Structure formats: structure tokens, C-alpha cells
């Protein structure tokens, strides 16, 4: 009875949500030579397992149907047979060797990261990724952009729910790209299923992985190693562009980064800072301190009415820019621009009924970031 009711419920529930597509059963084949090789291995071993299962379960169910007491079966007396036992030890062994050969070949290929044309350093942070293009002077963070309202079921979920970021990693099509994977806090794991690349990001050490994507496109992945509270909220988005577009992107991004740095000298009005600050707060801070500034438990203290947000401005700037050792508070010096930092600190001092009234100039932050050298 209950089973039937549950099934009915299931049928209703799945019928009522047509937006959730697919019922996908298998691993995607991916888009690289390596991912195709991995997919083929996966399918070979799968079919081998199916074949063994058919034989073993076939004999088993045949016995269950025919050698049952209710059908008058009388038990035989045999209980060992050396020849049979040797055969069923050796045959699986031979099958395994057959399996090991292609697996080894693929693995060797995956480990060969030589002759890469683009080198990108990938650093895992709680809970975002940072991409630095070696020798290109490009450096940015990539964080989740799915709005809190969608996560909290207050707004309909978009197609790429939880798989969308502000700054995707951009790589050229048809070029060997090497990833140098590391982490700045706990262990993360950088995974893009379409490339069959998964490499742990370990604090203090670098790991290598590589890919060569022939087709331009947008590919999505996620962090694959438990890294704390928002482990499920640090996706990876890779945009593969044709070489020409990639070159243009490099130029544009460098220009944009220079513009951001230059913007540090501008003076913004209180309103401009507050508007920008709210936006920055919601992407960079709200995950822990919450949109309403109330914080979360003892690990992520409230900012509303807090001593730091209402107190000395220098101390407030210091904790946001440099972090606080031994706590979950990160240093945002590298993660946010001077303008963003100035805006978000201004926001924290004047939002949710925090009415300090002062504002922070980007120039002040810039000076701190660079030091007085």
C-alpha cells in the first residue's frame, strides 16, 4: 500500500516539474581526445561487467528457478572441483589484464603535459576559483553568480542554476593548455567533466593537468572535494574561444584590468559607493555574513551592529583587506579591486541600520594594497 502511494507521489512530483529535464543515464562523452578515451574505457569495462553479470546471475537464477525444493529438486553432494575453481580464478585474471592494457595507455597520455602552449595557474579558495595566466599578466577570481533568491527558492531557477560564474576561464580552442592546480586554504578539486580533467588542489603544492579542446564552446564543472560550507557553490565555467577571439579577449581583459587599477584614483560619491557596495557584498560576502548582515552562527559573525563595522574605520579596512588569521575571514586584497573594497566597506558601515556615515576612498585602499613603496 505504502509503496504504491509513494510511487504515485513520485509520478506526480516528476510530472509536475517538467523544467527538470533529461533523466540522463550515462557519462557524457566529452569533447577532448582524452575524454573520448576515458568514455570508451568506461563503456568497455561496463559491458565486461554486464557480460559477467549475465553469466553469473543467469546461472544463479536458473538454479533458483529449477533447483528449488518446491519443484522437487534433490540436493546433489558435490562441494569442490579443483579444475573449475582454477578456471574461474584464471579467466577473470586474463580479462583484467585485457582491461589493464588500454587503461594504462590512456593514463600515460593523461600524464603527458609536455609542450603546452598556454599555462594557467588555478587556485582554489573557500569558495571560489582564481585563474592566473602565466606570462600574460592576467589574474582574476571566478565566483558563483546564481542569485541567493534562486537558491532559497524565492525565484525560478535558471537553466544554469549553480553552474554560472562572473568570470569564466577562457582558453583557446585547439591548443594544449596546462593547468597548474593549487589551493590557498583547504583541499579543493578542479573538475570539468567534458575534458575528463579532475585534479586535487592542495594547499602548498602544485599539481598538473592539461587539456586540448578542439571545439569552441562553454563547458561547466564543479569543485569535487569537500572544502567546507559552500563546497556545492563553487562551480567552474570554461569558455573555449577560437584563437583570434582568444587573442582579442587577452587584450580586452588586460585593458579592463588596467582600467580597474586606474579607477582606484577616482573619487566616488556616497551613493555610488553604496550602490556598488551592495552588489559586491552580495557576491563576495553574503554567503557567510548573509544578505541581511546577521551572520551565521559563531563562525560567521553578524556585521549589523558589529563592533568592527561601527568602530574604527582603519581596523575595519584592515580586516577586510588583510583578513583575520585563525578565522574564516579571508584576505580580500587580491580578490577585489580597490573600488570594490572601498564600496563594500562603505556599504557595511552604512547598511542595515549601521549608520556610521563615513565613506572609504578607493585611493586609501590602493595605498594599502601596494604599500608605500
Amino acid at each position, binding site marked *: 500500500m505504502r509503496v504504491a502511494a509513494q510511487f504515485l507521489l513520485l509520478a506526480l512530483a516528476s510530472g509536475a516539474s517538467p523544467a527538470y529535464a533529461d533523466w540522463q543515464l550515462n557519462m557524457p562523452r566529452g569533447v577532448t581526445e582524452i575524454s573520448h578515451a576515458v568514455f570508451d574505457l568506461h563503456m568497455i569495462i561496463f559491458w565486461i561487467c554486464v557480460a559477467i553479470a549475465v553469466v553469473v546471475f543467469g546461472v544463479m537464477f536458473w538454479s533458483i528457478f529449477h533447483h528449488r525444493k518446491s519443484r522437487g529438486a534433490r540436493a546433489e553432494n558435490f562441494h569442490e572441483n579443483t579444475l573449475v575453481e582454477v578456471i574461474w580464478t584464471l579467466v577473470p585474471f586474463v580479462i583484467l589484464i585485457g582491461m589493464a592494457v588500454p587503461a594504462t595507455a590512456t593514463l600515460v597520455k593523461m600524464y*603527458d*603535459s*609536455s*609542450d*603546452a602552449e598556454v*599555462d594557467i*595557474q588555478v*587556485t582554489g*579558495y*573557500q569558495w571560489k576559483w582564481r585563474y592566473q595566466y*602565466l*606570462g600574460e599578466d592576467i589574474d582574476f577570481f571566478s565566483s558563483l553568480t546564481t542569485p541567493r533568491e534562486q537558491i532559497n527558492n524565492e525565484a525560478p531557477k535558471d537553466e544554469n542554476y549553480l553552474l554560472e560564474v562572473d568570470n569564466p576561464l577562457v582558453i583557446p580552442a585547439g591548443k594544449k593548455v596546462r593547468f*597548474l592546480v*593549487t589551493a*590557498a*586554504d583547504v583541499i579543493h578539486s578542479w573538475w570539468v567533466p567534458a575534458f575528463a580533467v579532475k585534479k586535487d588542489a*592542495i*594547499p*602548498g*603544492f*602544485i*599539481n*598538473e593537468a592539461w587539456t586540448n579542446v578542439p571545439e569552441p564552446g562553454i563547458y561547466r564543472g564543479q569543485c569535487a572535494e569537500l572544502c567546507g560550507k559552500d563546497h556545492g557553490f563553487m562551480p567552474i565555467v570554461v569558455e573555449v574561444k577560437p584563437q583570434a577571439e582568444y587573442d582579442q579577449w587577452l587584450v580586452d581583459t588586460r585593458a579592463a584590468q588596467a582600467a580597474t587599477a586606474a579607477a582606484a584614483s577616482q573619487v566616488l560619491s556616497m551613493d555610488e559607493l553604496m550602490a556598488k557596495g551592495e552588489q559586491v557584498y552580495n557576491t563576495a560576502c553574503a554567503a557567510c555574513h548573509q544578505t541581511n548582515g546577521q551572520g551565521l552562527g559563531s563562525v560567521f559573525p553578524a556585521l549589523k551592529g558589529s563592533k568592527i563595522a561601527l*568602530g*574604527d574605520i*582603519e*581596523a575595519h579596512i*584592515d580586516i577586510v*583587506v*588583510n*583578513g*583575520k*588569521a*585563525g578565522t574564516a*575571514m*579571508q*584576505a580580500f*586584497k*587580491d580578490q577585489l579591486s580597490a573600488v570594490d573594497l572601498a564600496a563594500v566597506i562603505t556599504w557595511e558601515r552604512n547598511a542595515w541600520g549601521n549608520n556610521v556615515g563615513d565613506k572609504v576612498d578607493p585611493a586609501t585602499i590602493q595605498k*594599502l*594594497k*601596494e*604599500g*608605500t*613603496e
Partner: protein
Amino acid sequence: MEPLKVKNRRLVGRLALSAALMFGFGFALVPLYDVFCEITGLNGKVTRNGPVSEMAIDEARSVRVQMIAVNNESMPWAFRADSSELVVHPGQDQLTSYHAFNPTGRWMVAQAIPSVSPSEAAQYLHKVNCFCFEQQPLQAQEGREMPLLFVIDPALPAHIQTITLSYTLFDITPAQRTAMNLQQATRRTTL
């Protein structure tokens, strides 16, 4: 005393001893692991350090060495390699440096942790002298060149053409929390 009791007691003693030995073995895995890393270059750990004997310079071969600087989270120093990439001949002494600057208002100590990729190359990269051998203290607002003298073993396997050397900077300021809180407290009162 009954013989069975004696037998039991002896066996319990042996088993308890094996349990104790296995507890020790757990700790013995630590040095064993280091040896294992040294042999395989696991994680790009470089343990072979210090002066090395003169090596023949292989002029015919060039190896690209990339330098990476990583700041561990909560490490506010500005930290970068002075040259992000070098081309060197195996056997040739190469001097380069990293630069660190402490932008905070407090005295801090850092430790740089090296890592080499591909890990296979780790055992062929000899660091003759390295800032990572020692802890690096910096005063507030102080900056420093941190030299690195290394040489690549000519025995480096031929298929390795690029070596990446990364340094991760960790904040190891002693009695971190108390010192920092003190600093901040005094700063708050003086400002």
C-alpha cells in the same frame, strides 16, 4: 594457574603488542612517506637541498623554468617572482629572486613552501641556496628581495622541457592571534 589462562594471557600480550606496534607504525609512516616522496618526487616535494658538486653544463639543452608565487589564505604580503620565466641550461647555476612586501602595520614571519611540477622533475632541481630554507620575518611596511640559487641536474629526463617551481607563502607569525590582537588593540587606541 591454569595452562589455558597462561596460553590466553600470552596470546593477549602478543596481540596487544602488535596493536601497539601498529600505532607506532602509523607514526613511522611519516618518515617513510618522506622517503617515498624523495624517491618519486610526489607532490613535487624537494627535499634534496644545499650545495651540490660541480656539474657539467649541458649547453645544447635549454629548459624553461617557470616561477610561481602563491599566497596562502590570510597571508597579506605582496609576494611575486622577479622573473616569471627563465631559460636555463642544465648544470648551470642560476640566480633569481622573489620579492616580498609586508603591507600590514605589524611585524610578521613567513615561511615559503616550494613545490615542483611535474613531480618527476623535483629530484633534478637542486636548490643551492633558497629563502625557503629559513623563516622570513618582515617589519611593518618592509619589503625584501629573497634570492634563490638553483641548478638543474643534467640527468633531467629528456621529455621534460618545462619545470614549474612554485612557492606558497604561509603566515607563521608566532603566537599569531595574541600578537595580532595586541597590535590591533594598541593601534585602535593610538589612532
